[in-house]
């Protein structure tokens, strides 16, 4: 016991008292600020670099807007941005009797997808910076990167990973929303800490006086990450999860919202592609028939039998569950044929089916990958 005590003592003696004071006060500050970096914390060089970093995300967001630029999206984004702004004003009651603010970026991402969430949070940030002096104007790039890019993309990826293909009322959606909000904001805090922390390293006077945020990485990153992981991120998680749970009870279509505009073009592509494959399957079936016709098997094979078999199994097998369908059939049918020609053709069909399945799986993989890279 005394050993533990002395170890603890030496540990606390190692850290300057002022540093502990600092952590305490910094944690309180974080509660009140919800991570809006004001001008003056970051050097103009850093600010410009942050603008350059977020620029592609803005281009992506604007392109996404234009792509689906039905007039419908304009008021939608405006309203979601306004919602995000108002949500940032809610004093969320947390256990222990205090309150704190959420950013709402995770929620916007879950409902509208990360690209459009970036634009919505960006717009809320611009209004806060210009109109309410909350968060700097030059620091807009950095604030946008942390709260409008990192937070929505990370939380959306986590939410999707946990709740993809789950029913709308699934409890996993609530869990995914909470975890996404928590990790998303904590990662965002890490980046904010990093932006603060590189300032004294890079920008100081000749005698070492820091010109901007004064704390090194070793202080700023743990301070930001721990304070957020313990207080601000749970609030983001809480409000995201609570609203998702509420939507499950009252307005489930809002949870599918991202699906409708985003997956439907993909889906229609898939449908078109499936029709192509069915057509191809019909061709494959027809080609052996053509080969068969001048060949031998007319007496042994009824055309009805053939056509019925061809129509019955191949198109559907190509469409879905083809692996399950083809394997028993080929095993069942081949011995019964007693015809090398037919067997060859049939194995050709089986081969085509196998290749088809591989291609189908590959395409699925690529499209999933593609949508994942879009998401993360």
């Amino acid at each position, binding site marked *: 016991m005394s050993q533990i005590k002395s170890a603890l003592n030496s540990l606390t003696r190692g850290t300057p008292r002022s540093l502990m004071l600092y952590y305490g*006060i910094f944690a309180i500050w974080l509660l009140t600020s919800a991570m809006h970096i004001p001008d003056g914390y970051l050097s103009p060089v850093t*600010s410009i670099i942050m603008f350059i970093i977020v620029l592609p995300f803005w281009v992506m967001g604007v392109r996404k807007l234009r792509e689906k630029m039905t007039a419908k999206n304009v008021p939608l984004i405006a309203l979601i941005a306004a919602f995000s702004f108002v949500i940032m004003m809610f*004093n969320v009651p947390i256990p222990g009797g205090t309150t704190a603010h959420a950013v709402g970026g995770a929620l916007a991402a879950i409902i509208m997808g990360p690209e459009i969430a970036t634009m919505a949070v960006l717009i809320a940030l611009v209004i806060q910076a210009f109109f309410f002096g909350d968060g700097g104007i030059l620091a807009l790039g950095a604030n946008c990167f942390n709260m409008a890019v990192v937070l929505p993309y990370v939380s959306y990826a986590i939410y999707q990973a946990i709740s993809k293909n789950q029913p709308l009322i699934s409890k996993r959606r609530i869990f995914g929303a909470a975890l996404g909000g928590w990790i998303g904001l904590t990662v965002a805090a890490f980046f904010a800490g990093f932006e603060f922390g590189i300032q004294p390293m890079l920008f100081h006077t000749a005698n070492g006086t820091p010109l901007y945020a004064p704390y090194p990485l070793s202080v700023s990153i743990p301070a930001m990450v721990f304070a957020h992981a313990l207080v601000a991120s749970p609030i983001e998680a809480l409000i995201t999860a609570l609203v998702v749970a509420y939507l499950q009870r009252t307005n489930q279509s809002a949870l599918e919202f991202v699906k409708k505009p985003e997956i439907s073009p993909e889906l229609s592509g898939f449908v078109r592609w499936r029709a192509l494959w069915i057509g191809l399957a019909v061709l494959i079936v027809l080609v052996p028939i053509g080969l068969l016709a001048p060949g031998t098997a007319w007496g042994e094979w009824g055309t009805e039998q053939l056509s019925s078999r061809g129509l019955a199994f191949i198109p559907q097998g190509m469409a879905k569950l083809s692996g399950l369908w083809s394997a028993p059939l080929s095993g069942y049918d081949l011995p019964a044929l007693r015809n090398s020609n037919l067997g060859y053709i049939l194995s050709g069909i089986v081969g085509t089916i196998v290749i088809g399945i591989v291609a189908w799986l590959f395409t699925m993989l690529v499209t999933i990958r593609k949508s994942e890279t879009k998401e993360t």
Partner: protein
Amino acid sequence: MSSKRTGRSSFVERTLVDINATLEQSLFAEQTARLPGLLQELDPRLKILSALLVLLAVGVSRNLLVILVLYFLVLALALFSRVPLAFFVKRVWLFIPFFTGVVALPALFITPGPVLVHLPLGLIITKTGLTTALFLLLRVGTSVSVAVLLILTTPWNSVLKSMGVLRLPPVIILILGMTYRYIHLLLHLTNDMFLSRKSRLLRRMRGPEERRLIAATSGTLLNKSLQVSSEVHLAMQSRGFRNYPRTMDTFKMRTIDWLSGAVVIITVATAIWLGK
């Protein structure tokens, strides 16, 4: 906004206070923006670009005195623009302690350097610590003052319209304008929701009850937002919106604008040169 954390008022009250403060702030800004003053007369595009230049000068300066002079220039501009000075100073410096004072304070003690003052509890204020804390405070204070002064002397609509000079896509500007308008609608809605709940309360709510209420309010607000957005869409369509926003550009640079622009450029250039 964070000063309301004290006391045992419920979160409903605190949120109500915050919402009303926000509404009040934007009303006040619209009011002062219409007063006949120095900055109100100038072209909003010029004002936005000048504000950015001044922010840049404040940002790059390595000289405390230069930042201080820039701050007093901003104060003088506020005075000539009929912005109530006490209000202006208070609005900036009352809210900075919460955001920056707390961050700057420990820097006094933990930045290594020559000792300036010994304090009880073994705390030491270093000279470098003092300088760095002052840098942070002055920079943040001046930057916030510039942003606040811009909005106190320019109607939000003009700010938006002139954002085109920053090469913002028109779609974004359109959305910004709509967002600002619907922030007010949603704030009023939220105000009503919380107020109606508060008027039915007989006792303090328990934690879980509070969280249920906040979830229901946020969710309702979200549903309402989605609903309003489709209504606005219909309204836009019925008025002939054709996927591309058009604005009337009525701004004209006059002699006084060109002159003020020249003054700003000279001042900023001098500040940057002196602050090197």
